[in-house]
């Protein structure tokens, strides 16, 4: 069994926040923090880039919107022209509701599926789940993982850093 990395446990968000700043400044790249809720400002403390999700949503919502607009024109004016309720075949006001709903739907489906896809979920297993203490990550404990595939990973140095940041325990994770 090769080593996946180190798992350090913290008691509260303040410790986690301070520790993340230390790990970030130490220059690690393949590491992660886990918490029961989204700790405010932790992305800055970790030096994370903003999510690319909004760009996906924007692109697909605009495409869905354009598609629905022209689809309505094609279906109403060309595929089977049929006057109903005296409305003209080409009538932008009457197209608005379905057009709008299709835009919302394509944006929301992208936001939903994009969220899981960008996060690599669903995922069957993760090395951290083999740690008993990690079960409280969804309750009241806070964790930092430094992975052994990080280019500057050195087990002793990383362990010393994590202990120095006030971790209540540091354990090794197996891959």
């Amino acid at each position, binding site marked *: 069994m090769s080593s996946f990395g180190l798992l350090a446990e913290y008691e509260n*968000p303040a410790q986690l926040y301070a520790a*993340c700043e230390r790990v970030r400044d130490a220059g690690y790249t393949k590491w992660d923090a886990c918490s029961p809720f989204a700790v405010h400002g932790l992305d800055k403390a970790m030096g994370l880039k903003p999510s690319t999700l909004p760009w996906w949503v924007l692109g697909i919502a605009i495409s869905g919107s354009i598609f629905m607009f022209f689809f*309505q024109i094609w279906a109403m004016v060309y595929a089977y022209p049929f006057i109903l309720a005296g409305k003209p075949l080409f009538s932008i006001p009457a197209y608005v509701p379905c057009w709008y709903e299709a835009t919302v739907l394509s944006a*929301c489906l992208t936001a939903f599926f994009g969220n899981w896809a960008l996060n690599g979920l669903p995922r069957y297993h993760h090395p951290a789940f083999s740690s008993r203490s990690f079960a409280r990550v*969804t309750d009241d404990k806070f964790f930092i993982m430094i992975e052994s595939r990080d280019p500057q990973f050195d087990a002793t140095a990383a362990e010393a850093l994590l202990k120095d940041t006030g971790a209540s325990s540091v354990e090794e994770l197996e891959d």
Partner: protein
Amino acid sequence: MANAAPSTSLALPDDPNVRGDIVLEDPIEGREPLVRGDRDFHYITEAVCRGNELPLMKTPSTFVFGLLLAFAGFLLFGGYVGWLFWEGPGIWGNNNPVSWAWDIVNFVFWVGIGHAGTLISAILYLFRQKWRMGVNRYAEAMTIFAVICAASCVVLHTGRIWLDYFLFPIPNQMQLWPNFRSPLEWDVFAVNTYFTVSLLFWFTGLVPDFATLRDRATVKWRQLFYGALALGWRGSARHWVTYEKAYQILAAFSAPLVLSVHSVVSFDFAVSQLPGWHTTIFPPYFVAGAIFGGFAMVQNLIIPARAWLGLKDIITIRHIENMNKIILLTGSLVGYAYGMEFFVAAYSGNEYEGFTFINRAFGPYWWAYWIMLSCNVLSPQLFWFKKLRTNLYLSWIVAALVNTGMWFERFVICVTSLHRDALPSSWEYFVPRTEVLFLLGTFGLFLFLFLLFIRFFPVIAISEVKTILPQANPHWEGYAHAKGGH
């Protein structure tokens, strides 16, 4: 978090079932804290999961009784739908347009209920109303179940149910696309989009809480059930970044849905040319009414549920009071709309419009109109008084009255306008025959789903409520002396 000791917690009695109902003023802000007492993160987890983690065989008998009662209603629904399939909508007397109304009344009633959930989950989220965290999960669940009830009313009223797929833009044997210029087609799009988006939003919020239940599960089926639903969530900060962005985007798109769905439903009426329906006030009037009725339903569900589940420290009297304020506001807006309808009818000088409204208030259906008016406009006015809007029993009763009134509002709009429409041959005094069973059946379906939700799903957004505790902020002053703090 023993170092956090707000002075308010000292006066609280130990029994958590009593505690939340005492109104204590926050000494600094003059308001009740969002989560009562000196609470740590673990308390939130325990308080919410306790109800879900009870072994199946130890489900309280009162709950089983309620579930069986709701299931009986659900069976009634199934039986009635079976009869409807067998006989066709003739069992509603649909030879006459007046009888068209009942299923539509139910549809508009149920779809309106859902709007409070979306308002809480989306609009209050965007406006950073932190009190929403305690009630959004319930309200979103209520939205989804209400839309299921609404959809079942509208799907079943088409007559040839097996041809319902004609409503969707899928190629069919007639080579004719649905008419995108028709309000009925707009409705198909609006309700389907609304349901889909609400479901995605709800599920996204649930995933971290499913992970909590997964990590605490001690029996195999729970580990599998919640493990599958949690999608392997591990609370990674890298995931939270995208997750929160997705949540914001879903909220941002749901917020206009709150306004658009019931506007489109009102177009079903407003775009027609029947006096009483053909009015431009309908979209805002319907939206206000939907939020009004929806909050009343939230109150009716949450007041008993918070007591029963022992969640009075998380869903406090402040939440109830805030929702009562929204009921007062939207109830007054609805009252304004009722008045404005009469004003427009008089001011337009159109005799057909004028007749319709005089007929509404003093015609054969006068009783429905006055039930609507007294329940919707008069009863919420009690909430001007703080003593009354913080009284749980009164809140529940007013909410029940509002629900009744909102059902009658839809009855008044549908039935009184139709029973004197342009063709005197279709004039009739509509008397429901078996349709009441249909309404009761949808209530059975709704409560059955809701009770299952309470039993198996986390009823409070655990990971969101934790963020409103003071110690969730890494820069909270209680941490100032901690090692490595700022």
